[in-house]
C-alpha cells in the first residue's frame, strides 16, 4: 500500500474527528441546561442547585466550558455521568459489546443473505423470482425499523410466543455455565438481529443485484460461456467475485453508521447497547454521556470509512494504479 496515500487518508480522518469533537460540544449545549429540571423539585434549595451548577462547570462562560471539554477529550477523559456518577467510559464500555454483537450479527447476515439473494435475482432477471425478491427487498428497505421490530415482537413473542420480547438475556437468571448463558443470549438475539438484518438487507440486495447484472452482460462472461463452462461455475467463479466489490465497501461503511443507527431497535427490544444508552441520556440530558456516545459513533464511522478505503485499495487493482 502506498504510504503517502495512506497518510493522506489518516490525516483526513483526524481532521474530521476534530471537527466532530468541536461540533458535539455546541450541539448538546443547544438542548439546554440539565439543572433546569431541578427547578421543579420543591426539595432542592436554590443554594444546592447553584452548587450543582458550579460542580458541572455550568456557571462558567461557554468558552471556559469548551476549553475544559476540549482538554478532557484530548486526554481521553470523557468525564462522569451527571445522573449515575459513574465514569462515562465505564458506561460506554458496558454497552459496546452488546451493540457490536447486535450490529455485527445483523450486518453479517444482511451482507451474506443480501448478496446471495442478489445473485439469485440477477441470474433470473425479469423472471418471477427476480420480481418477488425485488418487491420483498424494496418493502423491507422502505419499512421503518421500529415497525419491523414491533411486527416481529407481535408475531414471534406475542401471538406465537417462542422468543423473548426484549432484553439481552433473561434478567436475574443465575446461569449454570457459560454455555447456558450463551444459549440464552442467542435466544434473545434472534428477534433484534432479524429486525436489524431486515433493515439492512434491502440495500445490500439492490447493490449486489445491479452490480451482478452489469457484470453478467460483460463480454468476458459471454466468452466464458462460449468456452463451454457450466453456467453456475461462470456465476460463482467469474461473475460474483467481480460484482462483490461495491458490496464490501458498502458493508464496511454501513457498519460504522448502523452502530449509531441501532438506537430505535435497541430501544424497542430493550437491548442494553450504545443506542439505549444514548436514548436514556437524551431523556436525562446527561451531556457527558451523550458527548461520549457521539464521539464513539463518530469514531466508528470515520474508522469504517478509512477501512473501506483501504479495502478498496487492496481489492481493486485499478485504485492502486492511480
Amino acid at each position, binding site marked *: 500500500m502506498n504510504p503517502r496515500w495512506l497518510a493522506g487518508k489518516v490525516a483526513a480522518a483526524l481532521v474530521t474527528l476534530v471537527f466532530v469533537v468541536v461540533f458535539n460540544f455546541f450541539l448538546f449545549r443547544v438542548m*439546554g441546561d440539565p439543572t433546569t429540571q431541578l427547578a421543579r423539585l420543591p*426539595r432542592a434549595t436554590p443554594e444546592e442547585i447553584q452548587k450543582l451548577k458550579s460542580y458541572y462547570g455550568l456557571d462558567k462562560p461557554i468558552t471556559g466550558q469548551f476549553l475544559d471539554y476540549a482538554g478532557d477529550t484530548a486526554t481521553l477523559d470523557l468525564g462522569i455521568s451527571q445522573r449515575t*456518577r459513574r465514569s462515562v467510559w465505564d458506561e460506554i464500555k458496558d454497552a459496546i459489546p452488546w451493540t457490536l454483537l447486535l450490529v455485527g450479527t445483523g450486518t453479517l447476515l444482511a451482507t451474506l443473505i443480501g448478496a446471495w439473494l442478489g445473485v439469485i435475482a440477477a441470474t433470473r432477471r425479469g423472471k418471477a423470482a427476480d420480481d418477488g425478491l425485488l418487491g420483498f427487498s424494496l418493502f423491507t428497505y422502505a419499512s421503518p425499523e421500529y415497525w419491523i421490530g414491533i411486527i416481529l415482537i407481535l408475531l414471534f413473542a406475542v401471538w406465537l410466543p417462542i422468543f423473548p420480547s426484549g432484553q439481552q438475556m433473561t434478567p*436475574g437468571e443465575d446461569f*449454570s455455565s457459560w454455555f447456558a448463558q450463551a444459549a440464552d443470549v442467542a435466544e434473545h438475539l434472534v428477534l433484534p438481529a432479524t429486525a436489524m438484518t431486515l433493515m439492512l438487507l434491502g440495500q445490500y440486495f439492490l447493490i449486489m443485484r445491479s452490480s451482478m447484472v452489469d457484470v453478467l452482460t460483460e463480454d468476458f462472461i459471454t466468452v466464458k460461456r462460449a468456452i463451454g463452462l457450466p*453456467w453456475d461455475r461462470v456465476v460463482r467463479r467469474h461473475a460474483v467475485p467481480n460484482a462483490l466489490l461495491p458490496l464490501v465497501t458498502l458493508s464496511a461503511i454501513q457498519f460504522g453508521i448502523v452502530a449509531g443507527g441501532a438506537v430505535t431497535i435497541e430501544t424497542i427490544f430493550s437491548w442494553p447497547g450504545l443506542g439505549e444508552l444514548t436514548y436514556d441520556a437524551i431523556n436525562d440530558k446527561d451531556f457527558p454521556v451523550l458527548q461520549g456516545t457521539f464521539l464513539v459513533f463518530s469514531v466508528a464511522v470515520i474508522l469504517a470509512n478509512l477501512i473501506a478505503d483501504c479495502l478498496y485499495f487492496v481489492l481493486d487493482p485499478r485504485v492502486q494504479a492511480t
Partner: protein
Amino acid sequence: MRLRTIVAMLVAMAALIAAVTALPAGAQDDGGKKKVLRLGQAQDVQTLNPFVAQDEENFRAWSLNWDLLVNFSPDDLSPVPGIAESWEVSPDKKTVTFKLIEGAKWSDGEPITSKDVKYSLDKLGTDSLIFSGYTSNVTSIETPDEHTVVVKTKQPDARMIGGLFIYMIPEHVYGKVPIAKLKKDFQPPLPMVGSGPYVVTEFEHGRILRMERNPNFRGEKPAFDEIQFIKYGSVDAVERALRLGEIDAIPEAQAPSFEKLGQADNVKTDRAPSPSFTQLTFNLCSEENCPDAKFNPAVQDRTVRQAIAYAIDRERVNTISTRGTSFPGHGILPQYYKSWYEQPADDYPYDPDKANQMLDDAGWTRDGDGTRSKDGVELSFDLFVRSESPENIQAAKLVAEQAREIGVDFKVQVVSVDKLTEITTREVDGKMAPDFDTFIWGWGGDPYDPSALLQLITTDQIGGSSDAFYSNPEYDRLFDEQAGEFDHAKRKELIRQMVAISQRDLPYLVLTDDPWLEAYRTDRMTNVAKQCPKPTGDVLCQQVNYDAIAQLEPGEGGDDGGSSTGIIAVIALVVIAVAAFLFVRWRRSRGGREPLELET
C-alpha cells in the same frame, strides 16, 4: 462433497443442539425454588448514592433498603416508629427527643445508634439535593446516649415528626468517605447496608437492580426471597413484558394504554391518587416584587380568574387529556393527603353561565371576535405548556376551548422545558421578572406532610420554588403557624383556612390530581392491598414505605423460566437450510462433471 460427509455434519449439529438446550433446563431446576418478584421499569434507578441523586425513581430502591427516623403508617400515612421507637415534644415545642429502637441492627450486623441518626440528619439534610430543606429549622442535634437523639429547632416545626423525609443511612459506611467524594462519584458498596426488609445486592445500571432479604431485618420475614427491578427500553416494552409474564408488576404504567393493559389475562391495574397535581398557573407577581415582569394585567383580576375556574370542566379535562386516569383537582392540597384533605367550600363546579354572568357584571364586554375587553384591556392570555407532555398539551387545548365559551382567549404555546423554566425564572436586576400570563405544569409533594406543596405559594418562595409569585401575608402567617402546630386537629383547621384563601385568590387552578398507575399479575403476586393510605392508596406504597411490598406473597401460576422453544426452532431451521443447500450442491457438483451440459 460426499453424502456421508453431509450426514456426519448433520449428526454433529444435532449433538450441538442437544448440548445447548439441555443445559438451561438443568439451570432452571436449581434457580426455580427461589421466590422472585420482578418489577419492570423504563426509567431506571439512576444512582444509589443519596448525596447526588436527583430522581424520584431512586426511591424505589431506597424505600426498601432504608428506614426513616419516623416511618409512615400504611393505614393513613401517620407517623409510626421507624428507627425511632417513640418521641416526645417539649412544652415549648422546640425540642423533640427521639428514643431509638434498642437492639436494632444494620444488615451487616452493626448496631443502629444515635450516631447514625445524627450523621444522616446532618449530612444528608444539608449536602444533598433531594433531602435538603427539611432541617432548615434545626439548630442542634445531640446524642446523649446510643439510643437517644435530641433535636432542637429555631421555631416549633411539626415536620420533625412525620415530615423529616431523610433516610437513615449507616454512619460506619458513609462517614468514612470524604464529603467531596460522596458528592462526586461515590458508589455505595454492595450489599448496600440498610435496615429495611431488602438490601441491594446487585446493580447493573441500565439492566437490573437486585435486592435480597436483609438477614437482620427486625420485622416479619417477607415472603419473596428477592426483588428485581428490570430496566426496559420503553414503557411499551415494560407493558408487553407484563402481558407475557416476563415480569410480575409495573410501578409506573402510562395513561394512554392503561385501560387496555387492565384487560389482559391475569393482569390487574391499580390507580391511586399520588401527592402531585397539574395546575393552571396565573402570574400574580406584584409591582413591588417584580417591577419588570411582563404579563396582561387582566390576569391579576381575581374575578377573571374565578370566572375562568367556573368555565373549565375539570372532569372533562381529566377524561380527555389523561383518558380518565387522573382525578379532577380540588385545590392546592391533593386528595391523597387524607389526614389533611377536606373538599374546599369554593370548589368551582363547572358553570359557564355563572362565569359569563360574573364577567358581564364586572363590565367585561364582548367585542367583534367574541373576546371580552374592558378599558382597552382584552381577556387574551398566553398559555404556555411543555412540549414533552402530551397530556398537558391536551389539557391546555381544552382550557382554551372552554374559556372561549365565556369570551376569554387563551393562546396555547407549546415550548420546551428549558424555555418554560426560563420565562418563569427570569430575573432583571436581581428581582424576579416572569414573562408569562399563564402556564400548565405540575408539582409533587411528600408523603403525609403537606408543607412542601402548601409553601409553593408563600411569599418566601418568590425567587425559590414559587411560580405564581403569589404573596399574601395572611396565607404566609397561616403557613408558619401550621408548620409549628403538632396538634393534628388544630393543624388541619389551619390548613383548611389556607386552602380556602388559595381557592378564593386562585394563584393556581388545580386541574387534576395526578395518579400512581400500577399494574401487576394476579397469578404471580397475592396478598395485594390498596394502602398508603387505606383504602384508596396504591398497592406498592411507592416512595413511602416498604410495608406493601414486604407483605406480598408469591402467586400460584407462571413459571419464570424462559422456554427454549425459540432457539430450538431457529437451530432446526438453520439445520434444514444447511442440509438443503449442501444437498443441492452435492447434486449440482455431480451434474457438473458432465462437461458439455448446456444451461439456458
